[in-house]
């Protein structure tokens, strides 16, 4: 399966790399891989608005840059607002004849902290105002850039530096905030989940998002060898396990209609995903079972949503 994908990617996607090689991401970074793939979706002129976080840090140390497209970083929590400004500026300047008329895609990029937590208000505002922008959340399930602190996207049971497993703690005590569902609640035309272990799927979804008539939100699970604790050559495999165990299903919501793909009638046991990662290794069989129940239940609900 993996070998097949590699060959297919080479043939199906443009060779152009908007994120130049030589950046400073960790070895095996799932986020850098996902960004690289997302850039393959940029068929028209694209401008990136990037939140503070790993991507910004590994790609923009003055006086260097890894970006071959216009790129701006401002702060942590205001990415959706800055992107709103960029989008509106092009709209009005074109209308007033101050710049050439053309399609300019505005892509906002942020991590899970910058999206689920500190950036949620600005994102909600941008969705509500219907700005034509594609928002990509690269979810590595904690504040990796500052040293693996928990976020509201950190899964139940994961040990992080601020939700450490200990005598009285199993690690993260809350279940992952369902950010795609929050996006869906804004009635935006396109919401999807993706993972760089499925490159064609990811690129197709980003393209769909850019073509949508309004805001689009794509939530991309980005396995992080450093923060999750797995060997750096297993990034793609860990992403696949997340999908195959059902803890991170790949689905789209186009104009409110759910579609899941792959639609797995039988899920791999969650243990297969958890036990390759250091952050879950402390979990007792009972806790693993508890997670299994929750994952199965959520997956079932999603499949039901898709059949509506």
């Amino acid at each position: 399966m993996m070998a097949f994908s590699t060959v297919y990617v080479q043939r199906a996607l443009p060779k152009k790399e908007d994120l130049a090689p030589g950046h400073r991401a960790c070895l095996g970074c799932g986020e850098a891989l996902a960004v690289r793939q997302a850039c393959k979706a940029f068929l028209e002129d694209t401008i990136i608005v990037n939140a503070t976080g790993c991507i910004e840090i590994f790609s923009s140390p003055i006086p260097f840059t890894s970006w071959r497209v216009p790129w701006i970083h401002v702060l942590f929590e205001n990415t959706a607002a800055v992107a709103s400004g960029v989008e509106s500026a092009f709209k009005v300047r074109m209308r007033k004849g101050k710049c050439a008329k053309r399609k300019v895609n505005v892509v906002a990029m942020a991590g899970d902290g910058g999206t689920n937590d500190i950036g949620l208000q600005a994102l909600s505002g941008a969705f509500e105002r219907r700005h034509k922008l594609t928002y990509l959340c690269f979810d590595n399930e904690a504040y990796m850039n500052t040293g693996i602190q928990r976020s509201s996207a950190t899964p139940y049971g994961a040990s992080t530096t601020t939700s450490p497993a200990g005598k009285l703690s199993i690690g993260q005590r809350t279940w992952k905030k369902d950010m795609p569902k929050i996006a869906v609640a804004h009635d935006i035309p396109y919401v999807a989940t993706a993972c760089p272990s499925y490159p064609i799927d990811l690129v197709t979804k980003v393209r769909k998002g850019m073509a949508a008539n309004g805001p689009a939100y794509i939530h991309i699970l980005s396995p992080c060898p450093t923060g999750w604790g797995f060997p750096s050559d297993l990034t793609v495999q860990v992403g696949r396990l997340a999908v195959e165990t059902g803890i991170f299903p790949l689905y789209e919501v186009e104009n409110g209609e759910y579609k899941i793909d792959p639609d797995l009638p039988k899920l791999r046991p969650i243990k297969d995903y958890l036990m390759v990662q250091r952050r879950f290794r402390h979990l007792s069989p009972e806790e693993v079972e508890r997670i299994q129940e929750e994952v199965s239940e959520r997956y079932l609900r999603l499949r039901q949503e898709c059949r509506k």
Partner: protein
Amino acid sequence: MKRVGMEVSHAVAEAVRLANVDLIAAYPITPQTHIVERLSEAVANGEIDAEFICVESEHSAMSVCLGASASGARTYTATSAQGLELMHEVLYVTSGMRLPVSMTVANRALSAPLNILCDHSDLMATRDTGWIQMFAENGQEAFDLTLCSFRIAEEAMLPIMMHMDGFTLTHVVEPILLMEEGEVGDLIPEFKSPMSLDPDNPLTLGGYALASEYTEVKVSQEKAVREAKRVVKDTWRRFGEISGRFYNPVECYEMEDARIGLALQGSFAETASIAVDKMRKDGKKVGLVRPRLWRPFPFEELRQATKDLDALVVLDRSLSVGSHPPLGSEIRSALYGQPKRPQVVSFVGGLGGRDITPEGFERMIEDSLKIAEAGPGEEFLIFGVKE
């Protein structure tokens, strides 16, 4: 030019319209509201071709303006008090990235306790943000300075704040000489950003700097803000040539032979001038010094204006709790190295909308004389505290 009776907030909106802005992003807060209400009305009626973005917070208002400015658009916003504080983080980035956003601050007290009336504690918290800052004292100045702000910002590639007192100015109707389209001439040329997000010329904006680069970036910003005084003066000169109204970094009133000066900012200056007139009639040599330009600080002009004084009374409308108030402390510091300098007596007053009458200013000056004679006592005094 036509003379009209107009609410000052609407006059500010009219200046923004005349400047043909591309984008306005704002979040409502008293007493800024009338400015942005009037602007959204102008957009709704097609009187101005601009995007009006109703954001979900002031943090986003400034962020939207920042993003639009980085995309080559002329942008404007207005706020007050808590709104300005919520923007605080973004203010530094806007100036650090050298983006010429123009903003009106309808000055208001900061919570707690909640108070919607005028003082200067909101703006004083933004002293170090790297924005060009100036004060309007009346409606005409608010209109004129707003219009000029766009040229200053875009020429200096720095953001600019125009301060006007909440309610005292924003909510009053004043006679105002309005300029019209044909009269603005080339005062406000089209904004052509030297560094914007452009697919034909992909730039990376807002990268991060380590210790090896950060100092140099900040030094260039400091230099730009200091040099912006030249741009400010040049713009005001050009504006004066068109309108007949000339502005200066430090405005002086009855200062030629004055022995005692009163320094203050904002709309209190007009009230204080009544006190000065009265005291002059009584043969007392008093005058007013108003630092109109707050950032960059007008060191030379202030030293020049105060060099022959025996005493300088400084009134702040803001506390710097636990230390000297802002204007008093900055004036003291600017005069400290001068071979001949007046005694500085520092007052704080007019907090949270409390009025000071002409008689009050008279009393303040009289009290100051006694304090100046008695020598160093209190670090500063708070005027008009109820017993």
